[in-house]
């Protein structure tokens, strides 16, 4: 007997029928349009803006993600915000797509956020708490006006609750996205003592209740002063309740900024020490058989270090040069004097120095010193061109070159002094190198907008 076939028409090539619900929906839709990839609905982590819901929807149905997003935003506007909580619910309930890179590690990426949040009782409590606080705030606002805030606000109570759950239970890469937004909520628990917390919340509740009661009791009254008192009470309650969050946010911001500034300063200092002291020490080692030269090097280094530590004049900076061409000439003279390698300089046009260009010069200097020390080339070419838009410096030698892939990580010269220095100031670096064919380092620094317009005139 012939085997029964169902569906009667053979499905097209690439038809994969998945047993799960999303897959069934997918194939059902596909029967209407025939453009679906046949994959189940997953949030798309590769092309996400928020939770990847729109991108996932787009991939599932074969739409353009941008179109899905635009439609969502428009629909949100028309539905007065009602769609927003659905977005977060989708985030919560639809499983994320598998991370290709982490696929081998066996992480349960397929599970939805909700499957984890279900067991997170603290998270649920927190979500309910946040929702209730928001509800109270909305109620208070409602006393004064029943306008836009009301219609737009209520759906967001659900959004906030969902967000709390997502934030507590989403995989790490999604949490990082939310951290900036949700960081404030984290300060409720572990930071304050439980007793202080309870006191604070109790006080807030009393104040809020008193304030609300007052407001409600005088609502019909024409007196203006009494509702004001109520407002003050409510505000005091809010400050008591939310004050620690705000403080924590502000403190975190300041701390983070300080940490970043410290790290940058350290990197700058390391680059400078490398340029001056470490370079000189390396030179001294290479010329150990020539005492006069060693003494001279040590003296020069001492002078430089002193002027840095006590007079604030940074080593490696091309000091005293007023223009780019002058700075390039100074690099040439320095390199020729210190390393005895002739440097052929060509400069095309010129411009005054600013901070970015000083960094460019410092990087160029480092590239020249590197070439002088390691290439073994008889001559180094140093080319600088100023155009209205940017300044390019090329350092080139025909020395022994190197294999860019085999540079050990602990050799700081190229990485720290040149690459980071340039990128800190918005410039770019291109290094062409091959064994036996020399090295070409191209440094490009965009000019400041003001300098640009001045150059065009």
């Amino acid at each position: 007997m012939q085997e029964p076939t169902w569906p009667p028409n053979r499905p097209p090539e690439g038809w994969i029928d998945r047993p799960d619900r999303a897959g069934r929906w997918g194939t059902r839709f596909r029967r209407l349009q025939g453009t679906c990839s046949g994959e189940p609905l997953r949030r798309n982590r590769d092309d996400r803006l928020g939770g990847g819901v729109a991108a996932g929807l787009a991939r599932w149905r074969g739409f353009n993600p941008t179109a899905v997003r635009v439609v969502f935003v428009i629909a949100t506007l028309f539905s007065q915000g009602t769609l927003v909580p659905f977005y977060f619910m989708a985030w919560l309930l639809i499983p994320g797509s598998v991370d290709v890179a982490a696929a081998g590690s066996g992480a349960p990426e397929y599970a939805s956020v909700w499957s984890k949040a279900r067991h997170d009782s603290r998270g649920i409590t927190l979500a309910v708490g946040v929702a209730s606080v928001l509800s109270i705030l909305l109620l208070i606002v409602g006393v004064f006006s029943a306008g836009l805030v009301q219609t737009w606000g209520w759906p967001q109570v659900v959004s906030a609750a969902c967000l709390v759950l997502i934030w507590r239970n989403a995989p790490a890469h999604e949490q990082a996205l939310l951290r900036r937004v949700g960081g404030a909520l984290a300060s409720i628990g572990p930071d304050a003592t439980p007793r202080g917390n309870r006191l604070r919340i109790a006080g807030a509740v009393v104040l809020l209740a008193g304030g609300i009661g007052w407001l409600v009791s005088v609502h019909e009254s024409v007196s203006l002063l009494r509702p004001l008192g109520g407002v003050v009470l409510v505000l005091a309650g809010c400050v008591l309740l939310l004050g620690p969050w705000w403080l924590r946010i502000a403190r975190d911001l300041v701390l983070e900024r300080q940490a970043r500034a410290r790290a940058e300063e350290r990197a700058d200092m390391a680059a400078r020490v490398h340029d001056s002291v470490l370079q000189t020490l390396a030179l001294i080692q290479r010329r150990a058989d020539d005492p006069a030269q060693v003494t001279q090097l040590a003296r020069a280094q001492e002078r430089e270090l002193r002027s840095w530590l006590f007079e604030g004049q940074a080593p490696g900076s091309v000091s005293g040069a007023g223009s780019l061409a002058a700075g390039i000439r100074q690099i040439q003279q320095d390199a020729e004097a210190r390393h005895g390698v002739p440097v052929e300089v060509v400069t095309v046009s010129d411009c005054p120095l600013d901070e970015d260009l000083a960094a460019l010069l410092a990087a160029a200097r480092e590239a020249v010193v590197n070439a002088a020390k390691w290439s073994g080339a008889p001559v180094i070419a140093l080319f600088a061109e100023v155009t209205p838009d940017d300044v390019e410096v090329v350092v080139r030698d025909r020395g022994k070159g190197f294999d860019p892939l085999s540079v050990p990580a602990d050799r700081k010269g190229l990485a720290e002094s040149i690459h980071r220095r340039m990128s800190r100031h918005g410039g770019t670096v291109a290094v062409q190198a091959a064994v036996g064919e020399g090295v070409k380092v191209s440094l490009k620094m965009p000019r400041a907008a003001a300098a640009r317009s001045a150059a065009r005139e």
Partner: protein
Amino acid sequence: MVLVDDHGLFRSGVRSELGRAVEVVGEADDVAPAIEVITSTQPDVVLLDVHLPGGGGAAVVAAIRERGLPDVRFLALSASDAPEDVIAVIRAGARGYVTKTISTAELADAIRRVASGDAVFSHRLAGFVLDAFASADTSGPDAVKPSFDPELDQLTARERDVLRLIAQGYTYKEIARELYISVKTVESHVSSVLRKLQLSSRHQLTRWAAERRLA
């Protein structure tokens, strides 16, 4: 080849170094004797110092051109690299420019090139030319002095690329490899730059040179 330089020591040095590669048929140490020697010997190439006591290399080139000797080609040579002098010699009609620090082999090569009708640009000259033609598109109305052929006033993007690489010390062969073109094409780019440099009536060029002299 005729060698014109006011330093006797340098002349004898070049002569002994180039002895095997190039036949030196005459020497001179000033403008007037140089013109005499060149008209009498009619060499393929004149290696000409930019700085001569009696009027500079440009005067020699101009005088020879006046006498109608188109087959004599000039290669300018200088130690000082004062841009306005170099540009003056090139605009007078020299086919190339090299610095005195050039190696013997490179000098011989440059002479051969000039003899065969090519242009020779040292990295420094390339820099000067780039500088002189820079901001051609953005220059103000005072810079626009219409010449017979507006194309002469600007370098093409390709010519700029070639000049940039020359300025970075690339040889013609290396440039050809870098830009994926043939050495012949590189040569023709350089020649066309030279032509523009000589024929362009750009106000810009003169002004640029004047500014350089002030600085």
